[in-house]
């Protein structure tokens, strides 16, 4: 067997293990943290500090009866969780855990990740459509609208980073970050995080499974292992988004003294905890407001970010980094304030004849 | 304090507006015949000096000879209240005109009376049983309804 195959196999196993284990830890962490935000201890029965709770949940989900609605489109219903789950796993292939420690160092890493991640939405729509349930369909329709629109600001916000490094390879981007790009690209980071939270359907953009409105959205009819896959998919997506944010904006595996993998995981956890914090605080937006936020607020902001970055690179390539950081942060606050004053939400009551 | 209207005075005012209606002023309520009820209610809301714009409570009670429909009215403008009643003597097939077009608040309460007393309200916007299912036999709040317990 050649080195290539050994490399591939070992990394696949490690990656798969890493994703599964960290998803379980994420689930535990989210429930504990949300609990603490809400003045309760969170799950604390299974194992010390409730650490075994996700495993207990996983076992429960595995041995549950698998129900398929009689009117469902069975083939699509079966395929949907897989179509949703596999792309998320594929995303991890191009994420560097340390210098060069990744499955493949693609020279178009970012492009690959973005391309693969947008396939997930097809799985979700398949689930919503095939369930033959009106709530599922509503959830699926919302997903399509939301995820397709948020791809654009997401990609545009990443372009700033690409312009700064001049490379699409994830490893190169990390290496280029002497100063984490969150300081050089604060606006880009803001847009990226907002858009990414909408991409992975976290509060306040969790419209597709809005519990108080459409019960569970696209996976209303799912149970057993198929539901488990969706659940896994959601958290793996959050993990991927946190990992990408870490790689692109927070300096990736770079850090003093300790092992790069430690730094990488610590930064991922930091981003994830922020996402949980937002989830614990904010209510949900309405579908038209989500769309307005994406198209009228994030899209112009990300375009402005692109233009400003281009100017900085072209006109003042030798400027002092500290000054640049100051300018960038000032520009971000100025633009966010300016835009939020001027954009109109629209929507509202529709007159019915 | 919400002042209760003086019923003889109210009767006089209404008889002047609507000559020929059967109306009776008791000590604590105004008794109107079912046929005139809708007209009286209309006047009660529209007359500027009375202006009973708020239907507080609309209910019924089953007595041996008749079913009584009781309106508890309020005027938010004048902070006054009045009780108007009507008696439906035909217990087999009681009916009267609906007042939903005057007070929207009567919609659900009339449905409730229809459901539990079997009083039919004409021109109601969607008169059907509200709590019990269609096909339930009998009207539970009538005294002749015998339940299991």
């Amino acid at each position, binding site marked *: 067997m050649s080195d290539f195959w050994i490399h591939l196999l070992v990394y696949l196993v490690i990656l798969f293990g890493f994703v599964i284990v960290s998803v379980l830890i994420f689930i535990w962490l989210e429930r504990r943290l949300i609990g603490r935000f809400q*003045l309760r201890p969170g799950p604390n029965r299974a194992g010390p500090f409730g650490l075994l709770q996700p495993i207990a949940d996983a076992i429960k989900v595995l041995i549950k009866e698998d129900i398929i609605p009689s009117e469902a489109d069975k083939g699509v219903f079966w395929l949907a969780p897989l179509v949703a789950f596999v792309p998320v796993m594929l995303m991890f292939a191009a994420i560097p855990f340390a210098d060069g420690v990744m499955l493949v160092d693609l020279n178009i890493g970012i492009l690959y990740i973005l391309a693969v991640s947008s396939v997930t939405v097809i799985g979700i729509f398949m689930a919503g459509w095939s369930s033959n349930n009106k709530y599922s369909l509503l959830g699926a329709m919302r997903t399509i609208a939301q995820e397709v629109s948020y791809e654009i600001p997401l990609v545009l916000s990443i372009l700033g980073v690409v312009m700064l490094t001049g490379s699409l390879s994830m490893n190169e981007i990390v290496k280029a970050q002497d100063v984490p790009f969150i300081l050089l690209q604060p606006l880009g980071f803001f847009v990226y995080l907002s858009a990414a939270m909408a991409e992975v359907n976290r509060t306040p953009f969790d419209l597709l499974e809005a519990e108080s409105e459409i019960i569970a959205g696209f996976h209303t009819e799912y149970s057993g292992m198929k539901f488990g896959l969706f659940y896994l998919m959601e958290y793996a997506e959050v993990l991927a988004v946190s990992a990408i944010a870490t790689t692109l904006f927070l300096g990736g595996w770079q850090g003093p003294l300790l092992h790069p993998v430690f730094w990488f995981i610590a930064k991922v956890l930091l981003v994830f905890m922020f996402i949980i914090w937002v989830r614990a*605080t904010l209510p949900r937006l309405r579908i038209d407001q989500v769309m307005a936020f994406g198209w009228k607020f994030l899209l112009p902001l990300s375009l402005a970010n692109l233009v400003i970055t281009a100017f900085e690179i072209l006109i003042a390539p030798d400027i002092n980094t500290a000054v640049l950081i100051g300018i960038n942060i000032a520009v971000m606050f100025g633009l966010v304030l300016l835009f939020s004053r001027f954009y109109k939400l629209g929507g509202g009551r529709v007159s019915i004849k | 304090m919400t002042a209760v209207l003086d019923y003889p005075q109210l009767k006089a005012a209404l008889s002047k507006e609507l000559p020929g209606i059967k109306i009776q002023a008791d000590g604590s309520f105004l008794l109107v015949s079912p046929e005139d009820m809708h007209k009286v209610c209309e006047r009660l809301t529209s007359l500027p000096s009375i202006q009973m714009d708020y239907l507080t409570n609309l209910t019924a009670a089953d007595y041996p000879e008749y079913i009584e429909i009781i309106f508890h009215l309020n005027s938010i403008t004048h902070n006054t209240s009045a009780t108007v009643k009507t008696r439906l003597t035909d217990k087999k097939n009681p009916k009267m005109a609906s007042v939903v077009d005057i007070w929207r608040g009567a919609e659900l309460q009339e449905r409730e009376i229809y459901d539990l007393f079997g009083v039919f309200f004409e021109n109601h916007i969607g008169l059907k049983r509200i709590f019990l299912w269609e096909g339930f036999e009998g009207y539970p709040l009538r005294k002749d309804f015998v339940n299991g317990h």
Partner: protein
Amino acid sequence: MSVLSNTGGGILKGMRLTFKHLFRPWITVQYPEEKLAMSKRIRGNQVIWVKETCIACLACARACPVKAINMEVSRGEDRKLKVDHMSIDFGLCIFCGLCVESCPTKNAIYMGCGYETTTYRCTNVEKAEGQSFSECRCRELILTGDELGPSETRVLSGYDRPDAAEKLPLQTLLINKKGYFER
């Protein structure tokens, strides 16, 4: 009105508040291990009947709004009323306490402090011919005679019985929880 009002300022304020809550003690109770002292007047899921002091006046049976108390009395040879049969159906009881209030002796019937009466399933259902499921009675919930008396698990509650209330511990209150009000 700050610069940030309507542009994210409110969201930041809320996030600050939730962050503060992260460091406050939690308010929930870890139930089976940690139990609160209940109210002294607790109307738990028990009604306790003291056979010795009962004068068989049937006041409690009459006061019951749901007819859960079934008491049969007869006159003994000494012309005194005695209780032949006493049973309370806890499937019917709504724990309103009216029987306790109605008792003229004030020491024959009490509410109980217990509230842990759950079991996994009812094994003994009494069902007559032609009865619907809601009409049949679970025999385990019908307590008769001595089963209704006080015991270690059936502690007298102080509901309308000040003398019994004195023996009970003070109620734990969330208000008195430490580390919470020092904001």
